[in-house]
């Protein structure tokens, strides 16, 4: 069966520090991968999505970047965090046979 791993679950980082959040998927190949941010427990903002290795689509200009170095690995990064980067970050995947998205448990990022 397919599973998605996202870590860490919580993270407190100072302003100006770098960020790396990792997401991996098991049990499937060539998934579509997504990073979302959820602010204040409400709407999900699509940050990045990827349909293949090295293929990243950015949805909004921001202080973040994404990379997909392997088929089932999706990384969210920042060189210098801002206070406004605080939020709940969710990774998700969709597959060729499964049209619905499956989500990781999320990372609560607090920038202080």
């Amino acid at each position, binding site marked *: 069966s397919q599973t998605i791993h*996202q870590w860490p679950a919580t993270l407190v980082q100072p302003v100006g520090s770098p960020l790396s959040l990792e997401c991996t998927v098991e049990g499937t190949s060539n998934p*579509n991968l*997504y990073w*979302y941010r959820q602010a204040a*427990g*409400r*709407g*999900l903002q*699509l940050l990045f*999505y990827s*349909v293949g290795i090295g293929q990243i*689509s950015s949805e909004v200009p921001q202080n973040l970047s994404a990379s997909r170095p392997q088929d089932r690995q999706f990384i969210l990064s920042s060189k210098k965090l801002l206070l406004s980067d605080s939020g*709940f970050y*969710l990774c*998700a995947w*969709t597959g*060729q046979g499964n*049209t*619905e*998205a*499956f*989500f*990781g*448990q*999320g990372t*609560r990022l607090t920038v202080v």
Partner: protein
Amino acid sequence: AQSVAQPEDQVNVAEGNPLTVKCTYSVSGNPYLFWYVQYPNRGLQFLLKYITGDNLVKGSYGFEAEFNKSQTSFHLKKPSALVSDSALYFCAVSAGFQKLVFGTGTRLLVSP
């Protein structure tokens, strides 16, 4: 570009009563529509989807949704609400199996 609107920030219903959570969408081409539920500090859980076929879709935990092409709506319904249904509900749309866009969410509060 595809988009989803959830016009109600919160829906209040008494336990045992029917509930409806509204969703309208905009997409070029045939829509793929989804409902998800989120409990505090957790990832999203898939409830149901419409891809093609019957306009009434049945999903997990007794939820169902009705696809209405002329009104571009996909409202979530349940005949009899439970207190445990209280959570944040998201509608989502994609055009094809790629970019998946979510609404802003509707908080459902079921009172005993």
